[in-house]
């Protein structure tokens, strides 16, 4: 076991003292950490794979808390409609990282609510097709875009089976320091990577979900809440037929 992982554990224990904990499901505890942000000084390792479990039975109809939290955390709410753009077209052009989807079973009529975002595949099609390598998977499992070498060809958007990516269609006047953003590049959910790199262990959507429908954590740590929950409850991958081994899983679909 690497040194950094050991220290990560220690950090976790230290923080767990100040954490408030919530019962997600019987036996599954969700920690909301008030982390003392300490930026990383060592490279991320493949000892960790970040992942998420979304319990669709808890995802409430009409609730937009996670979407709004994501928009705020990642500066998506700062992306203004350009002057003269049509409202209707702009809605289809503005970036989204997370979205609610409501499903109806064709046979039984059962309704399901869930949220979709980048599924952080182990074998991401967007990474395969990117001509420059801008679309990449970090060793800790986060799929993201290196905007410095993204040329804006949108081939990754063609390749993504989850429609998870957005192209920035206009200049962005206001940016957050931790989430740079500019016209002409593609982006998508990055599991709030700035939080993780600064020592936090939660995503904005997870923190915002008052129904505890989102559990986030390290899939490689058998003791993490997400690993425990995945072990305990049956879960599925969306488009499992593609064998992408997604980092985001769902229960009760």
């Amino acid at each position, binding site marked *: 076991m690497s040194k950094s992982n050991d220290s990560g554990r220690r950090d976790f224990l230290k923080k767990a003292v100040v954490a408030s904990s919530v019962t997600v499901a019987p036996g599954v505890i969700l920690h909301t950490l008030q982390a003392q942000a300490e930026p990383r000084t060592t490279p991320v390792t493949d000892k960790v794979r970040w992942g998420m479990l979304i319990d669709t039975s808890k995802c409430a109809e009409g609730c937009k808390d996670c979407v709004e939290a994501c928009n705020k955390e990642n500066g998506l709410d700062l992306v203004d409609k350009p002057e003269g753009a049509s409202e209707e077209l702009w809605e289809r052009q503005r970036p989204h990282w997370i979205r609610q989807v409501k499903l109806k079973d064709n046979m039984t009529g059962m309704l399901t609510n869930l949220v979709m975002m980048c599924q952080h595949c182990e074998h991401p099609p967007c990474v395969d097709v990117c001509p420059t390598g801008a679309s990449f998977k970090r060793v800790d499992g986060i799929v*993201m875009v290196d905007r*410095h070498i993204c040329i804006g060809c949108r081939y990754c958007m063609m390749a993504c089976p989850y429609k998870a990516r957005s192209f920035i269609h206009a200049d962005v006047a206001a*940016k*957050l*320091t*931790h989430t740079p953003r*500019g*016209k002409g590049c593609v982006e998508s959910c990055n599991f709030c990577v700035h939080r993780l790199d600064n020592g936090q262990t939660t995503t904005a959507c997870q923190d915002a979900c008052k129904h505890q429908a989102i559990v986030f954590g390290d899939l490689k740590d058998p003791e993490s809440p997400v690993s425990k929950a995945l072990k305990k409850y049956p879960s599925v991958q969306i488009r499992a037929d593609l064998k992408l081994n997604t980092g985001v899983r769902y229960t009760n679909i």
Partner: protein
Amino acid sequence: MTGKSSITLPAILVSSLWLGTVSAGEAVEGTAKADKLKSCVEPTEVMRRDHFEFIKHQRDLAVHQGIRGSKHSLAGCVDCHARKDAEGKPVPVNAEGQFCDSCHDYAAVHIDCFSCHSTVPGEK
């Protein structure tokens, strides 16, 4: 840093918006953190010659390896070098006559950091 004090151009910041709504006024000299320091994260001469190498190196480390704590980050540059206007609002570092712009304008070097990156110190 020494070279900076000689640059006191009154900047008209028409286009520089902060968080979309607040536009900063004229920068006040001595209001940047860097104004009160003797030298940058490396000796001034080194910074002048190689700052872009540092930033580029840090950029790849940050994006691909998650190392955000380095002293060579662009966010660090902005945090330290952005001045404030009379009302205490930060003035973008790339605004006319401000830290980044003054040199880059003189050297006629156009770079693209701020079409994506924030030009004022971050929320933290």
